[in-house]
């Protein structure tokens, strides 16, 4: 068999292995947001419907079909992005997502990248000076950072930069170009970095310290290679896998809490504020789309990240 075919088979098998996961996440989101959610027939009929009206409307909407049939139609709707209309404004949910997702991405991406890179640099520094004064300072600060709630950070930054100093706007999202973008994104970025850097530094440091015990790292140190060379060439490579996995897993945890908290608090028209308003008003089509799609996207992302890690690892056996 040629290596190309073998690789293809490996990828196909890996992707197929994620099907139970996709089945699980869609089943749970269907059960929670559609099956147990409010009956749309009531909403469509208005006040005081008769039992016959209700039954007719339920039949029309397919509410009387068995569970698995409704689950199948839910899957079809997710797959074709036929997500219906919002209850609040009647806008197509697909259009709503297309309008708000880019805002959330622009809001969170700088903080996510900066938080990860800074944490990695701090962790390398701490791991190199292990048990020294600087290491203790960095690990101590990261425990303090971990104990600060995202909510505390957001309000504190709002108080300091928005109310006291008045340097940056803390409400709304009037972005027309690079300058106004920087103006609006600074506080969210700072908040995101502060919220994530403690957890990240601590985790990265633990991984790096572990990787530094490897024999070839000790040899490289003995030969007098520069710290940067050793860290990047030998140590980081030794623990790249858990670090990448960790970064992928921190995307939904941090991005969703960040998007929900900052967009609702600062009135930024992103996906988090839409979700927040949908929770308060009980807007079922929006919640169904957000929960279902993000669960599927994340399940796929985890599988792909795992696949990439394995493919990047020269020790991998494709069998």
């Amino acid at each position, binding site marked *: 068999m040629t290596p190309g075919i073998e690789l293809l088979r490996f990828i196909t098998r890996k992707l197929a292995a994620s099907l139970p*996961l996709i089945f*699980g*996440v869609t*089943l*749970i*989101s269907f*059960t*929670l*947001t559609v099956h*147990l*959610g*409010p009956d749309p027939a009531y909403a469509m009929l208005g006040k005081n419907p008769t039992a016959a009206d209700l039954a007719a409307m339920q039949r029309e909407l397919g509410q009387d079909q068995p569970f698995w049939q409704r689950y199948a139609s839910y899957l079809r709707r997710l797959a074709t992005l036929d997500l219906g209309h919002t209850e609040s404004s009647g806008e197509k949910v697909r259009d709503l997502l297309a309008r708000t997702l880019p805002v959330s991405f622009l809001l969170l991406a700088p903080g996510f990248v900066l938080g990860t890179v800074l944490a990695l640099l701090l962790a390398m520094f701490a791991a190199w000076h292990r*048990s020294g004064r600087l290491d*203790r300072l960095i690990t101590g600060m990261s*425990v*303090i950072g*971990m*104990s*600060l*709630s*995202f*909510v*505390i950070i*957001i*309000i*504190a930054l*709002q*108080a300091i930069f928005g*109310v006291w100093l008045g340097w940056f706007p803390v409400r709304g999202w009037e972005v027309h170009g690079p300058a106004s973008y920087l103006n609006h994104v600074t506080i969210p970025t700072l908040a995101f970095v502060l*919220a*994530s850097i403690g*957890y990240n530094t601590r*985790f990265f440091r*633990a*991984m790096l310290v*572990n990787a530094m015990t490897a024999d070839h790292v000790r040899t490289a140190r003995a030969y007098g290679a520069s710290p940067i060379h050793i860290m990047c060439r030998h140590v980081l490579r030794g623990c790249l896998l858990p670090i990448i996995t*960790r970064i992928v897993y921190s995307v*939904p*945890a*941090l991005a*969703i*809490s960040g998007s*929900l*908290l900052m967009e*609702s*608090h600062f009135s930024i028209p992103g996906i988090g504020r839409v*979700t*927040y308003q949908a*929770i*308060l008003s*009980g807007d*079922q089509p929006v*919640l169904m789309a*957000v*929960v279902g799609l*993000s*669960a599927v996207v*994340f*399940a796929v992302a*985890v599988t792909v990240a795992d696949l990439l890690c394995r493919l990047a690892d020269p020790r991998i056996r494709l069998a």
Partner: protein
Amino acid sequence: MTRGHAKQMPHRPWRMLRIDHIAMIVVIAYLAGALGVWLGLWAINWAEITGAMWAAPSAEHWLGTNRLGQDIFSRAVAATATAFEIGVLVAVASILIGGLAGAVAGHFSGSPLDELILWLKGTIDAIPFYLLVIAIAFALKGHTMAMHLAMIVAFWTTTARVVRAETIRIGQAGFIEAAHAGGSTPTRIIFRHLLPNLVHVLLIQATLVFVAAIKAEVVLSFLGIGVQDSISWGLMLAEAGQDIMAGQYMNFLAASLFLFGLVLAVSLLADRLQDRLDPRTRHLRSVGIE
């Protein structure tokens, strides 16, 4: 003392011991505060209007009053009890479910039962936490315990993973096989031989879940889908977000310092607990949910 010598001195454990003790005293102080609330000794009038709007700190109102004229200190103390209720309930339920699921999966590792538990765990881990909470709150139509249930559903998986790995490791030690050969039933093996050897793991997990639950409560209450009909630090911070725009900071300072103190103290204790009881599984620890 030379510098080289000083480096070899075990001054780090000594430092940590002191931090341990301070953390322990802080946690006990919080617990005493919560006990007083449960026994009705203090902070009973947290919901009543006892002063003017935004009164400054005084002998009567130690941390001043909020927008409505309610005493901020009483509210922060009453919220301590709420935090313990949520933290303890979620931690105990999560480690019971996670411990049992993990022990069963580990004992029958490789079997369809193990596969089923792993699939459930993987599925729940793949649904972003806050969306799972939102979906559960939505399905339960805003039931007051929806948040607690959602946290338990989300948090048992970490314990299950750690306990499963540990169970497989213990299983290789031989005495499980001996018990099996001696005719013990799987139930007896799990409850008599496995779980007693996992107490330290469960204890560490309980402290980690406790912290995670308190932090998640603050985010959810701040968003308006958490604590209802009671007072919590998250609800106080939601008020504080409005207050600071009017230049009032006492609500924010009180809620965030109370929250920060408890989370930091319990996190430090969890760390020390892990160092003492189980240094080997440090790398397995939950990295937390923000």
